[in-house]
């Protein structure tokens, strides 16, 4: 593999986001100088990550969610430079953009890679399957190598020898067709209260709740703890909770200080959504439930007795959320 490693950097408000910094850190581990592509400001912030050249697409229309047009620009840059590898964050927009570029170039692509090393013309890599519950060793062919980096698979770390990147404006030739998907104005958030993805404490409910009404027991505990309430796919499929409350592979990934899992067995698809929690407390009748493999603490027994007892004890002691 010869040539630079080109990293697509997302920098909302001119500040490279965490997943982009992770992708830049990952890219340093591949051979070759690291270059960046930005669709807006933020290039001067990339020296700490040893970026030699920052290509800045100078077309204001590329600022929004326009994956087709961004891919057209990316493909032009790839054809002009050409890099040995192109790396993006394994976020929804990152995966979408790289899939578009790969399809246009007729090249393979690997999503959610956790490590990679060039071996001859091929890239040997490890990537996530099943949302991260399983790892795959694989070969990636093609030129350039196209891949996205699994979120939080590497820690974003500035390089030991910072650079001052040369910032190169780049004017892609775009047609109306690249903008055939019409973007409508973004609708702002309407929800209030503690959001599940940002909450410091989350109380989760599963099939063991037995009914939607039983969630009032979790709501009470959550309000005493300043926590958000979520659940397993069983409770969203049953209509006990909206899908926006689902934690797991096809729901939300949470990373609270404490996750209290009530009546949840711990299927792998649920665990990938909550394993970033600092601590997990499981409340379950079954001491052998798989959730016990990942939980730090457990209370064995009927959640309908245990959860209200914890709420009562908090009330009795007059404890407040810390």
């Amino acid at each position, binding site marked *: 593999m010869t040539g630079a490693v080109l990293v697509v950097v997302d920098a909302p408000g001119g500040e490279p986001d965490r997943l982009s910094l992770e992708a830049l850190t990952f890219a340093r581990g591949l051979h070759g100088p690291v270059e960046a592509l930005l669709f807006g400001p933020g290039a001067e912030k990339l020296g700490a990550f040893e970026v030699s050249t920052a290509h800045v697409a100078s077309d204001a229309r590329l600022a929004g969610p326009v994956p087709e047009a961004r891919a057209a620009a990316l493909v032009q840059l790839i054809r002009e430079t050409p890099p040995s590898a192109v790396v993006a964050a394994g976020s929804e927009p990152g995966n*979408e953009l790289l899939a578009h570029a790969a399809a246009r170039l007729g090249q393979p692509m690997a999503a959610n890679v956790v490590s990679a090393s060039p071996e001859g013309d091929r890239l040997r890599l490890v990537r996530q*399957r099943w949302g991260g519950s399983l790892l795959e060793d694989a070969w*990636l062919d093609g030129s350039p190598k196209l891949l996205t980096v699994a979120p939080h698979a590497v820690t974003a770390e500035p390089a030991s020898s910072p650079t001052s990147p040369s910032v190169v404006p780049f004017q892609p030739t775009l047609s109306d067709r690249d903008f055939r998907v019409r973007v409508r104005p973004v609708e702002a958030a309407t929800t209030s209260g503690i959001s599940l993805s940002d909450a410091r404490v989350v109380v989760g409910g599963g099939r063991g709740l037995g009914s939607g009404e039983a969630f009032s027991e979790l709501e009470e505990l959550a309000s005493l703890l300043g926590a958000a309430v979520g659940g397993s796919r069983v409770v969203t499929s049953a209509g006990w909770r909206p899908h926006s409350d689902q934690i797991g592979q*096809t729901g939300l990934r949470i990373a609270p200080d*404490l996750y209290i899992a009530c009546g949840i067995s711990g299927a792998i698809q649920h665990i990938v959504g909550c394993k970033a929690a600092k601590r997990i407390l499981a409340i379950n009748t079954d001491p052998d439930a798989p959730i016990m493999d990942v939980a730090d603490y457990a209370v064995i*027994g009927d959640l309908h007795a245990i959860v209200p*007892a914890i709420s009562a004890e*908090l009330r009795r002691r007059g404890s407040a959320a810390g």
Partner: protein
Amino acid sequence: MNILVCVKRVPQTGGRIVLTPDGQDIDTRYLGFTVSPHEECAVEEAVRIVEKQGGSTTVLTLGPAAAEDQLRDAMALGIERAILLETDGREWDPVATAEAIVSVVRSEEAANGPFDLILFGNESADTGGYQVGVRVAVALDRPIVTGIKSLEVGERSVVARRDAGGGAWESFELDLPTVVSVKEGINLPRYPSVPGRLRAKRKEVARVSPEWRAGGLEKIGLRLPQEERSAAEVIDQGPDAAGAVVDLLVRIGVVRQ
């Protein structure tokens, strides 16, 4: 409205994954099979659109002969026709999968007219490639958006919405014919009815046998990630645990006394 939905057969893994001794696959001897929740929602969405505004629905999968079960599951929910791209059980990478789907779409469209809407899951449950839908759309030169959680279908275009983070929504308008990748949450799929299941059993499944080819992403083997967590510390049994739990909450700084 003529709609095609693409689904993929995957094992229904539960609490723990067990691999085959050669590390090439998940040991599925004791497992059932299903499709991704995203794809279940794509099936439901297709059925709802056609219930509301008329048209026809087709489900397609590329997989082993047994993937016929997943096609019948979709027909039990109201999909009319099914196409199986039958493989010998080997894994197909995303490039090869998309090519095979595109070639069937082309021959179907030549025979029966265009699909106004092709629905995909956002990502497959097992391999999570995040690309087959995009590749198919690009090959057919049709627009696509991914991650869609709400879809309104008009005469000539669709309006599709997705999460933009922090509770905000991004919204797009795409002219038909188009491709859309959906996510779980776009709807709440119905359960199959008994008559639905019986009808699905009797329906025909069209079969094609595409030839396997390498696509540029080649599996070497599978392994389980190393997790550092140790077994849970059992605080207590039953409601008597409440005192000890609150002590713990105080100790780890979640509540103040």
